């Protein structure tokens, strides 16, 4: 049970959109599901030699891992693997946030911790997607000419990221209100 759920309903702090204590974890699960689904849906439409292909987040990670064949040292190999892991972290952090939020009442986790988990997972997803958006729009390297522009899976992942950030902020604000109360 989260700390503020022990208060009578009328005394519970209200931040932004009012959500019942059962709805918020459900929303987190929905956001995590969207993050996972979005990760396997097209993030980018291909361009150039990949004109008739599209790339999901999962495809991107695989594409990055394919570069390992070109790595000529342990450090460049680690760099390639690290980049792939960075992409896999997008759904991993979202799922982790959902698990923590759902299990918080059972484990007595503080709302602050859950809030941070949600906020970090959403912000991380948005940061990764923002970086990809930048690479696809700015002619910095071959990325733009081969990967093209964002597709609907990208928007879905961005929406899930934003939802996680909002839920996280909400949890943190409620914790703050609770602390004040």
């Amino acid at each position: 049970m989260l700390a503020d759920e022990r208060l009578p309903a009328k005394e519970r702090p209200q931040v932004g959109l009012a959500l019942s204590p059962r709805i918020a974890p459900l929303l987190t699960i929905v956001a995590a599901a969207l993050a996972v689904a979005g990760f396997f849906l097209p993030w980018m439409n291909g361009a150039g030699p990949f004109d008739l292909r599209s790339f999901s987040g999962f495809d991107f990670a695989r594409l990055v891992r394919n570069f390992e064949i070109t790595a000529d040292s342990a450090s460049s190999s680690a760099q390639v693997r690290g980049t792939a892991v960075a992409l896999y972290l997008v759904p991993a952090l979202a799922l982790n946030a959902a698990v923590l939020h759902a299990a918080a009442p059972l484990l007595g986790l503080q709302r602050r911790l859950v809030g941070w988990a949600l906020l970090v997972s959403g912000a991380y997803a948005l940061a990764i997607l923002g970086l990809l958006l930048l690479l696809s729009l700015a002619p910095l390297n071959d990325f733009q000419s081969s990967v093209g522009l964002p597709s609907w899976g990208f928007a879905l992942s961005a929406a899930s990221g934003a939802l996680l950030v909002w839920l996280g902020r909400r949890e943190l604000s409620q914790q703050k209100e609770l602390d004040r109360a």
Partner: protein
Amino acid sequence: MRRLPLLVFGTISIVVIAAVVTFLWSLGSGAAERTPFSTADMVPRDVELYVAVNTEPSSPQWMAFADVLSQLNVEDSARDAWNELLEEEDLRWDEDIVALLGDEGYFAITDFSALDDGEGAVGAFKLRDAGKAEETVLRLVREALEDDGSELLEQDYEGETIYYVEEDDGLSGSEGDEVFFDEDTSFEGSSTSFNGGAIAFLDGVAVAGLAPEDVEGVIDVIQGRAPNVLANPRVEELRAQQLEDFLIWGYADLAAAWDAIDEAVEENSEEGEDPFEADDLEELRANADRATFVVSMRNDGFVVDAAVLRAPVAPVEDGYGFDEVFNSHYAQQVPEDTLAFVAGRDLYNEVYVPISDSLSGVDLNLADPYCGGFGSYFPTGEYSEKDDPVYRQFYDETGEFDYEAYEEWDGNLQRFFTDAEGNMDYDAYSEYMNGLYEGYCEEESQTIEEAIAEFEQDVGFDLEDDLLGLLTGEFAVAVNAGNFDADKPDFDVLGLLDVTNAARVEESMTLLGQYLEREEGWQIDGPDGSGVRLVREGAGSDDVGAWAVTDDSLALSYPDTPASAFVSGFEGDSLAQNEDWQDMMELLPEEKTFVAYVSLARLIEELRKVEDAEAEFADATDGEVTFDDLEPIRSLGIATTNVEGGWGMRIAVLIND
């Protein structure tokens, strides 16, 4: 107490995140961009040649290839060149060709003997957008046909449309006309047509062939009415061994090639003549039954693997290629900057004996332009009309041809073969002339075996027992060159051979030296304090070679310095310590039976020193590629190895920035 929730939070987070990342990682490993041999189920079972081509640009193989092009700074120029070429057809390389292809395609020859009739070759490529491919290909074909007045024809086969072209052979004429080639040969009828190619677009696959029948064969395979190559155990056995991805994988059924050669030889040889003995062909059949080749990329290079396999029931025979695994110890005894290096083992048993067995009975006159059947295929050196066994009688000492004497001789001869009515018997004349040559050639005939026996007698040793038979360890040749701009560029070559009996080899080499002094006028000096003997091709010659026998090795070199340096032990790093050599040895098979290495980096370095080389190279490539761009190209290596049931070879180019 406040720490407990944090601990729970951290533990759950680590477990969940690690589990999800691990799951995705393994999912990503298993779900590759392409499955090698994904077109195998479209290949007719009985192929004689099958070449699978990876066409997935996002596969690691093509990404590595693109990386190499990028390292060499030729990726953009290559793409531009393609685009320029395709621009005329309103096509773009990336968008209209590469993007259209699926993950694999193949070419196959189903019947080598049918190729002459314009049949027997097919190919199929997976497509990402069959509609766009069909539209593009048919547009291009129709445009091309417009120019030569041909027409694109269509036929339906099992619900699929096959587009094909029948081309005219150019012999126009109305039905019944006769076209004469010469007095004896005429061609009755009008022009005939032959296959100009056929193509069909199935669901996600383009199938092309030389003839509509070829395409029909592949449609039957795709639609399940005919077996595919997966049901061919000869191919399947080798295909299953290719576990890693590739750019190109090829299979050739050499049994079919031997049949074709056998047939061609039989057709082209005269009655009773047997230029290719049946035993030889059977031996070749047994030792080279099937072949595979693979072109693939590694993280630091480009690799071509080839393997030739014996027939399944053929006994393992020694003496076909190098088969003794070794690690070169001579690589540790030649300088680090060696330009080229070759090494193997057992020169006597692996090289001399098989060659000697095959060639000992060969007449040395074989390469004679007047006596040998293959004279025209060999470099004739100083041969001239003066060497003609019949006409040489008309040349005087200064090389002048005496026409008067010749005309008199020929006139007499012609008169002899001319009857009272003045008709000359050309056949008899020709037979007589041939007889003159045959008589001479028989007189001069000498087999290689006989020539070696004569040579052994002259030298005073047994070539095999006293010299070659003692060279059964490693042998190596190291070459260095440089200063190409000079009047006389630097060049040296060092041959090294393990010896099993140094004293006997020393004695044989001394006898050989004495023979060369006696017969060829060479000058052999020494040995000096290190045991090195200097060899000059004539007294006082500036060109000095050397040989020396140490406890374990016979060293021969030109000029004398490499042999001297080898005997006294050179200073500095050896080739084996060179990083490029080490990287190349890792790229080549671990169990080498022969190895060749060329330092391309050194070669390029030497070429750069040549005056104006940089500018000329830039000019030749329109400034697109410079010597700087070639810096990542480090070396070329070739190694042979034993593979299960046969013999393998790898050619590798080390590219490393």
